[in-house]
């Protein structure tokens, strides 16, 4: 069961801040993150990996990326 973080339209550092607070809250499991630009995709993936989470899945739908982060 994954929770969703919608970071579309937000500029840095907000997507990473949202994901970090969700990671802190959940500690394990899966988080789905929606971003709408390549920079946020890179930043969120980098930050999640630094916290020991992995990017399990990455789907591009038009202008958006859906990332599944897992721990």
């Amino acid at each position, binding site marked *: 069961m994954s929770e969703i*973080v*919608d*970071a*579309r*339209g*937000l*500029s*840095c*550092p*907000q997507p*990473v*801040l*949202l994901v*970090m*607070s969700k990671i802190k809250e959940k500690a394990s499991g899966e988080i789905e993150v929606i971003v*709408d*630009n*390549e*920079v946020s995709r*890179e930043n969120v993936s*980098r*930050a999640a990996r*630094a916290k020991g989470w992995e*990017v399990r*899945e*990455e789907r591009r739908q038009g*202008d958006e990326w859906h990332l599944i982060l897992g721990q």
Partner: protein
Amino acid sequence: MEKTRNLFATGTGIIAVGALIGVLAALLQKLGNPGNMGICVACFDRDIAGAVGMHRADVVQYLRPEILGFVLGSFVAALAAREFKSRGGSAPLARFVLGMTAMIGALVFLGCPWRTLLRLAGGDGNALLGLAGLVVGVWIGTLFFKQGYSLGRSQKQSFGTGLLMPLLILGLLALRFIYPPVEGQTQSGVLFYSAKGPGAAHAPLFISLGIGLLVGFIAQRSRFCTMGALRDLILFRQWHLFSGFLALLAAALVTNLVLGQFHPGFEKQPVAHTQAFWNFAGMLVAGFSFALAGGCPGRQLFMSGEGDADAGVFVFGMITGAAFAHNFGLASSPAGIGPHGPAAVAVCLFFCLVIGFGNIERTRA
């Protein structure tokens, strides 16, 4: 599972980009740009404001090709990587005002974050105060982000809106070719030029433009950002962008040593003053503004080239801020701060606080 791996955005990539910018900036000084000002986004935006007559400080008027190259280089890189995306509508007026406050603060210190590093790399001890101010300003900005500060989401815009910034910049470039500088003249057609002072010191057009295009391209790919470097380190203990920041400093320092451009000291540094408190306070306001707006002045130019209209609004805020800074006596000079510099710092700080406190969302997305 990276599909098309972006080499520029790797750890090695960002270090290489920072180092290359450091070397090129120091070389630009050798080739004619002002001392410790190979590239200064604040100073060069200010020179552009002078070139088009928005202020008439006759020593700082030149349509800097580096700035034009930044936007166009980023535009080309974003198109090539299919990252060009027209977006905007996230608190444009707040961003315009932040552009103004950032520029006014930077002109009290006399430099943007890039030039802070270049001044350090040239041995200018006054830049230590500027760097300290920048760090504190960005740190204050991170406190607001921790409280839920946000200028809101941007929206997708029409392709035409995204093209405006590159087109406007192309227009400025056209003016530079139509009205080139004339020896001994301070005006050529609609453009103003400096006969003396920093505005008269510049590298040859095609070298400046070429380096600008190259830097714009690699900075877009790598997301190089000097404010983000400090912010991510403070907020997330993340070293990624900061490694590019350090690489710029180190590479410029080495290049300066090789070229004989390193002159350590506080007195008589090029385009700098020695008023420690105002060097600190000016850069604090600038750093705070950049943090609230989400990017250093270079990054704002690069983002404006990739279709971000909000970043474009910030850039025009900076240029307008520069005009006010010189028309109202807010900007410093090598003789010291301007007559109304202290008032400007206080007013700009006030506006930053209004924007900061006024945009804290209690319910996060």
